[in-house]
């Protein structure tokens, strides 16, 4: 293996096609090269046949980086979208780190575009300059007169495809600071007609997800896990499994957390697992019930908070003419991505390990596997494949399912690849949930209906404490992910006290699409509505009163006004009711108006959702709209009827019949509007989710004699859905 670190392009490739590989190191543009036994770490690869390939460092779970990142390169390089393809980057945090995560490669926090925007544009621009320099030399003309359009170098009365200059360009020093296009010259960035690069393969069955891996001679492994988290295997009896045709073997995992059941195919593995008898030691297993978790949270809300998050005095509400008060509870929730968790591990000929995975956080499983297999890092490779959704689930601080697969593989003779498959039941019962949270809020209004104090207490289970990500999120004891959206709200609320109490952790907890904002936005926006009603004011204009100020407030007010205007706020047709909410998360501002027919008693039908988003420069408006549509559906679907509950430590739900996904008939049209902006791009994968549920709650309240659902899911707390 050899990685070229000088600033010189190289010709790589033994075949008929030579490649110019341009990357960007920490010191600016570098060109990496390779010979037969190399590993390449570029952002853009250009073949002498003119083919352009973007090396995408973020995994694709539907949120769009496999289109968005190539768009940045195509824009700067000067090729059309039908002239560029993509490959997922290998695991290498030196080159492919998420720039917001430190030296860690991974996708999360709606950061894919935000951290790639300049990096990938510079990679495309560097390639352009090198190709142009090569053409200028060959044509003996000044480089300043040349440009690349549609994959052709043009100027000085000449025109030739870029592939023709790849060989020469690879000998030219890459520019340290590539010259980027002016925004006014963009053809692809911001163009609403740019379509996804992965739609055709996802519409004809040829898209390959990790679940679709079929390696020669592979075994399928499923894991028999304890009914309660942290149970330990004592003994197994596989005599029943032996009757299943295709069953190979059953073996206790080295950590005794479960039993790996190996079979020739998936169905045999499931059958053999059902037939397996396991004796468990449950003495250290999870034993709490959701009722206990809830009681602890509710009690914590009544006690003095553990942390004074904003470091200010407790707000005195004594002088208030009126106090609006509400207590909220949010249950555990599962992510349930459409593709059940899975990955495949094989031994490579050079004594290494290759993982095939819809891998969200490559750096985590990479290190974990190096440890399990006792191999140096460079002997572990990760083949990142398309992922069938995630919503946070494929990124765990423990690399849970990759570790499971590695343990199931390490105890075999390693001659047969092992494909680990989770069933849907494994997924719903197998832990890693949005934590349960409670809020108690008291808002004081003066005689004119103005907010004079906002006392906000939060209690719940910290996601980050005790994990490898604690340092990212926990400061002075406060896990920011527990209070984000409240402690940092753009609303200019006078006298806001934020108290936090961490409650005991039960089961495994994880970020879930939009993390803390899943509950904080709900509380903030339901309370704003309640305060507006108490003040006798319109909920839309009432919010605007607290959004006067700097850019932060202006942008939030901007989306609120746009959503209200486009939704026809206050002008709902007969029989319809509207609810509004606005929230900032992951740097983006989103306002939504939900319009319903019916009411809580007779049946609510979600007729229409109008959304306005300000995510800075809108790189791909079509994907942004899709992410808002999907984020809204995800937010609304779960508050309607979903919860994960524990009884004596065991999860009660097991599959979609009792963890019912949002269905097509649940939600009407969604209309998305994007604010024109010159600000740096911010997230879109998550920000659509937070305002959706409170906007629905506020619409239901408007239709249902002020029934304000404060304990979720709605279907169990007084709301019937049509």
């Amino acid at each position, binding site marked *: 293996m050899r990685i070229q670190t000088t600033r010189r392009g190289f010709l790589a490739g033994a075949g008929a096609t030579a490649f110019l590989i341009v990357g960007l190191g920490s010191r600016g543009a570098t060109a990496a090269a390779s010979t037969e036994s190399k590993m390449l770490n570029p952002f853009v690869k250009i073949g002498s046949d003119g083919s352009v390939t973007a090396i995408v460092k973020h995994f694709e779970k*539907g949120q769009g980086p496999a289109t968005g990142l190539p768009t940045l390169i195509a824009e700067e390089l000067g090729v059309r979208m039908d002239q560029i393809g993509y490959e997922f980057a290998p695991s290498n945090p030196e080159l492919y780190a998420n720039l917001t995560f430190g030296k860690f490669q991974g996708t999360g926090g709606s950061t894919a575009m935000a951290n790639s925007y300049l990096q990938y544009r510079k990679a495309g621009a560097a390639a352009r300059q090198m190709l142009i320099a090569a053409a200028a030399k060959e044509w003996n003309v000044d480089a300043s007169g040349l440009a690349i359009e549609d994959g052709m170098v043009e100027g000085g009365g000449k025109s030739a495809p870029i592939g023709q200059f790849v060989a020469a360009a690879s000998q030219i020093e890459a520019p340290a600071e590539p010259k980027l296009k002016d925004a006014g010259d963009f053809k692809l960035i911001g163009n609403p007609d740019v379509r996804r690069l992965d739609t055709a393969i996802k519409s004809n069955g040829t898209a390959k997800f990790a679940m679709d891996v079929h390696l020669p001679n592979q075994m399928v492994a499923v894991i028999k896990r304890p009914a309660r988290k942290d149970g330990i295997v004592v003994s197994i009896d596989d005599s029943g499994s032996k009757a299943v045709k295709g069953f190979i073997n059953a073996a206790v995992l080295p950590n005794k957390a479960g039993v790996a059941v190996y079979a020739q195919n998936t169905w045999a593995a499931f059958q053999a697992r059902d037939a397996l008898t396991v004796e468990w030691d449950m003495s250290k297993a999870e034993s709490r019930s959701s009722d206990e978790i809830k009681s602890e949270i509710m009690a914590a809300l009544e006690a003095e908070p553990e942390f004074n998050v904003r470091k200010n005095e407790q707000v005195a509400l004594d002088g208030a003419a009126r106090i609006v008060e509400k207590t909220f509870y949010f249950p555990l929730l599962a992510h349930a991505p459409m593709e059940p968790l899975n990955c495949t591990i094989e031994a490579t000929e050079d004594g290494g390990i290759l993982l095939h995975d819809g891998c969200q956080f490559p750096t985590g499983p990479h290190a974990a596997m190096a440890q399990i297999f006792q191999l140096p890092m460079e002997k572990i490779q990760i083949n990142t494949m398309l992922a069938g959704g995630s919503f946070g689930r494929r990124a765990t601080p423990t690399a849970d399912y990759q570790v499971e697969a590695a343990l199931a593989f390490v105890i075999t003779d390693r001659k047969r690849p092992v494909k680990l498959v989770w069933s849907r039941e494994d997924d719903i019962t197998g832990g890693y949930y949005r934590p349960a949270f409670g809020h108690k809020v008291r808002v004081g209004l003066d005689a004119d209906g103005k907010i004079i104090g906002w006392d906000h207490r939060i209690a719940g289970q910290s996601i980050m404490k005790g994990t490898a990500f604690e340092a990212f999120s926990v400061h002075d004891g406060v896990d920011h992910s527990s209070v984000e959206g409240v402690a940092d709200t753009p609303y200019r609320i006078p006298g806001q006290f934020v108290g936090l109490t961490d409650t005991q952790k039960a089961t495994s907890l994880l970020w879930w699409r939009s993390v803390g904002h899943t509950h904080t936005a709900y509380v903030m926006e339901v309370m704003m509505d309640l305060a507006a009603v108490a003040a006798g004011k319109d909920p839309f204009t009432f919010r605007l009163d607290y959004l006067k100020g700097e850019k932060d407030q202006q942008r939030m007010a901007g989306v609120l006004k746009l959503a209200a205007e486009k939704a026809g706020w206050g002008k709902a047709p007969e029989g319809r009711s509207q609810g509004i909410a606005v929230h900032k998360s992951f740097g983006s501002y989103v306002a939504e108006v939900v319009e319903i027919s019916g009411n809580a008693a007779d049946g609510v039908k979600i007729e229409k959702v109008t959304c306005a988003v300000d995510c800075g420069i809108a790189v791909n408006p079509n994907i942004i709209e899709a992410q808002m549509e999907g984020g809204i559906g995800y937010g609304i679907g779960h508050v309607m009827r979903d919860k994960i509950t524990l009884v004596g430590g065991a999860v009660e739900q097991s599959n979609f019949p009792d963890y019912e996904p949002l269905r097509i008939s649940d*939600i009407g049209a969604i209309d998305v509007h994007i604010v024109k902006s010159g600000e740096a791009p911010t997230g879109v994968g998550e920000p659509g989710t937070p305002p959706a549920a409170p906007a629905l709650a506020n619409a239901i309240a408007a239709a249902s004699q002020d029934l304000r659902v404060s304990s979720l899911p709605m279907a169990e707390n007084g709301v019937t859905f049509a």
Partner: protein
Amino acid sequence: MQYDLQLNGKTHSVDAEPGTPLLWVIRDELKLTGTKFGCGVASCGACTVHVAGEPVRSCQTMIEDVADDEVTTIEGLDSKAASAIQQAWVELDVPQCGYCQSGQIMSAVGLLSENPKPSVTEIDEHMWGNACRCATYQRIRAGVQRAAEIMEG
């Protein structure tokens, strides 16, 4: 047991135990991976295929029950409705993660084959059983309507 499975216009000789879901025969034996495993209990529709032209959930259809019928998977789609649906899906960028979309398309093709101009309510009723965790429902609905237009010509 040996079964002669009529699938995508060919006869495949398959060795499978009775009670084996068609889904796993298609995916693990025939290695046709366009048909997806999502829940195993006919609750999500990711595994939808056509049996004798009708959409069915292959995870709850046993191999012995399709011995006499033609089975079509996403790989074998070949009809006016199918090409209209696939064209509309591409035009509107319907998929996000894409994992459920084979099943969505198989269901949608089934609908348009029976009812070339479905109303929104008819679309919702027919597509109800196909879950999409990315919630691409808005575009699925629009995609079916667009395909109906394409079919009209």
